């Protein structure tokens, strides 16, 4: 399968701060790729290097088989910036017309694409209004429309649903899944891990400018399991005993959640509860969510 994005040791240094360090990524065409990390980890810096806003300090990358900065590649790329700020004196339709000109879309393409994308993001009724009158959510929808204008093969979305309500988020998810069905590649920066988990084929975690894990959600979840137990009167002694055989990731008055490496550890957990004098009412193994993997990864090394 061809690679839509390939980066080799991509690094960005600001003074004495390294925002991204030797980032190596391979994103195959037709995938939805989730890029995750805490605030300030370097997510947006990487996207900005890939779309040409920032100059890498070292390393190289290619998009759709062409080097960074290639105008040919940019014709096939859509980008929704995190700030989604647009020229407020224009109407939504004028703004889309302006961006169509930047893409050099011909008259027929414009007449076809502008109504199509405004309809897709649910802005048809507001397309004639000035951008300055738009709400935050409408601006984000407009940004989405701009990014989809050229029917791009590769779409970079930086926090595309941050200003949307749950219904709007679902609509964006559906749009992204529809694009994936048409073979488009989507690079998604998001804090909303549940969303990423729902739609992404591959994910990568970045921390302090370094990629600390990458793979499919299934691969990252493999070998990591959470067991939730219902126990009468969870005490400090029980938690201490469980901590010796697993990692306690949460507890309530009568529930304990622990992370285990494999299902072989489940009988050991039951045995530990009983040996500690606890009365076990329920034991339910679950897969670790992407959010829990994310939190665990961030804690590691702290």
């Amino acid at each position, binding site marked *: 399968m061809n690679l839509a994005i390939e980066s080799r040791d991509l690094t960005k240094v600001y003074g004495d701060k390294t925002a991204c360090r030797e980032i190596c990524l391979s994103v195959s065409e037709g995938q939805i790729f989730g890029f995750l990390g805490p605030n300030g980890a370097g997510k947006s810096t990487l996207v900005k290097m890939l779309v040409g*806003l920032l100059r890498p300090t070292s390393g190289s990358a290619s998009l759709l088989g062409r080097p960074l900065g290639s105008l040919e590649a940019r014709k096939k790329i859509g*980008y929704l910036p995190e700030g989604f700020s647009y020229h407020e004196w224009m109407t939504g339709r004028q703004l889309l017309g302006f961006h169509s000109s*930047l893409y050099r879309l011909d008259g027929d393409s414009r007449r076809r694409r502008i109504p199509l994308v405004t309809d897709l993001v649910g802005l048809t009724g507001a397309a004639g209004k000035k951008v300055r009158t738009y709400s935050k959510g409408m601006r984000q929808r407009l940004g989405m429309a701009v990014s989809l204008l050229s029917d791009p093969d590769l779409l970079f979305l930086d926090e595309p649903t941050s200003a949307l309500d749950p219904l709007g988020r679902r609509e964006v998810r559906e749009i992204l899944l529809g694009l994936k069905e048409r073979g488009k590649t989507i690079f998604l920066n998001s804090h909303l891990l549940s969303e990423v988990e729902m739609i992404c084929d591959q994910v990568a975690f970045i921390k302090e400018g370094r990629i600390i894990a990458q793979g499919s959600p299934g691969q990252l979840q493999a070998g990591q399991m959470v067991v939730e137990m219902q126990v009468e009167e969870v005490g400090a002694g029980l938690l201490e005993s469980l901590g010796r055989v697993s990692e306690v990731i949460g507890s309530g008055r009568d529930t304990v959640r622990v992370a285990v490496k494999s299902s072989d550890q489940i009988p050991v957990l039951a045995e530990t509860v009983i040996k500690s004098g606890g009365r076990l009412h329920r034991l339910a193994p679950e897969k670790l969510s992407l959010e829990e993997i994310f939190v665990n990864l961030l804690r590691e090394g702290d």
Partner: protein
Amino acid sequence: MLTITFFTIREAFSRKILLVSLIMAAVFLGLYWIGVYYAARDIGGSQNPALAAVIYPQLLLLGLYFGGFIVAFLAIISSAGLISGDIESGAIQAVITKPVRRSSYALGRFLGQAIFLGLYAAALFAVIYAITRYHTGLELPGGLRALPVFALQPLVILAVCLLASTLTSTLAGGALVFMLYAVALVGGFIEQIGWIINNLYLKNAGIVSSLIMPVDALYRKNVHILLNPAAKPVNALQQMGPFGSLAEPSQWMMLYTLFYVALAVLAALYAFSRKDIG
């Protein structure tokens, strides 16, 4: 590049700063018209041609000097954020990630703004010229040659604004260009005084200020084009005031001005092509 040029022209016409500048220009032209009208009426009735020969050109110079000031004000206010404004608002991010070269973007912004400012300056010059000509009957044969020189003043300011807006914030860039403009104006006055009292230091200070920003030199050139002292002996007398020009800026200074604009634009293109936009 043309897309960005047309976009910039549309943007210029849609901003509130245009309305403010039009109001300023209307107030200024209204006052100027009142001044010229009453001066022409009284001097015309006094049967004193010497008085007319001194006062009418002074009125014209006053109009051109402060007309230039209004154009400069518009140029600084509307161009200080030509690129930095879009960077600060974030609007540039969705634009320069399109298949557009950064140099095309910056050059398109410059050309669009240059067309807008050039038209504004030309219109203002034409109205000042028409008011003066109509009420005083003053012979101004160099009008067509003076117009492009007048319109070049805001382009000098624009070129520096473009460079500043690729290097620093809108506020810092605007303040810097305004200070450079002030240096040029003060330098122009100092040079004029230097010629009156024949002081080499003052003359050189004026020349240096014109090298820093050659807007005052353009104004003084225009004074010579419109009121050529060689044409009429009385015109030499007219050049004595603060708005006159006792020494005509040379053709080298005009060439330097064009080189100055080109260099500032090229430096802006280079700086912008290497700029990180975060």
